């Protein structure tokens, strides 16, 4: 979705960690906490945070800060907020 909206990502730095190696009887092999700093070909910078274990999280959200304003898309509530 990010690439569809903002174009190609041409560089990144990522860290990940498995905090709970066992879950519901399964051996976890995918990081349940992942942080990515990325750079888009159009010059935009991205900060991506993913967590599968974040207790009481506020929900999935995408924030876009640009020269003309700010967009905040709350996926959980399916609400878009815009400030010019």
């Amino acid at each position: 979705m990010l690439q569809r909206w903002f174009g190609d990502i041409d560089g990144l730095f990522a860290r990940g960690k498995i905090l709970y190696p066992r879950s519901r009887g399964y051996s976890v092999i995918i990081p349940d906490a992942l942080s990515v700093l990325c750079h888009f070909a159009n010059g935009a910078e991205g900060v991506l945070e993913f967590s599968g274990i974040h207790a009481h999280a506020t929900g999935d959200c995408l924030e876009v800060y640009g020269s003309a304003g700010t967009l905040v898309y709350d996926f959980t509530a399916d609400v878009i907020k815009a400030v010019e």
Partner: protein
Amino acid sequence: MEVPTELAREWTVENDFLDAVKAGDDERPYPTFEDGLRYMRVVQAVADSVLVTSGSRSRRKLFGASDRRFKPWRPPDLNKLRLQTAAPLRHVIALRKATEDHLSRSITFRALPPQQIKGVDAPVEVLRSRIELNRIRLA
């Protein structure tokens, strides 16, 4: 958390994929194959970056490998990253003509002798695939 009965459904991802290939529709849904490759390159870059930036204990947990195989971190060149594919790059695949036509921009196909496939009456045309990395470079 229990899934409400009205929201529960069977896992059909693989069947959905096969149905999409078998349909052979001219009109392809988004994302396209090429966009999917671009997406997978970023996912692979994230995995490669995690591999070389996380602590050794996490690395072993993540990838089950020894520390000796890891090199100092350097910015990844997305055009040189290995592709993560469901099948090996030189895998033999069977597909319909419409799918071959659609993928021919990125993949070179070479015909092999037709093969009998379980559940299919007539022999199926089989192609050996080769992804042309230089034809799907990022802009």
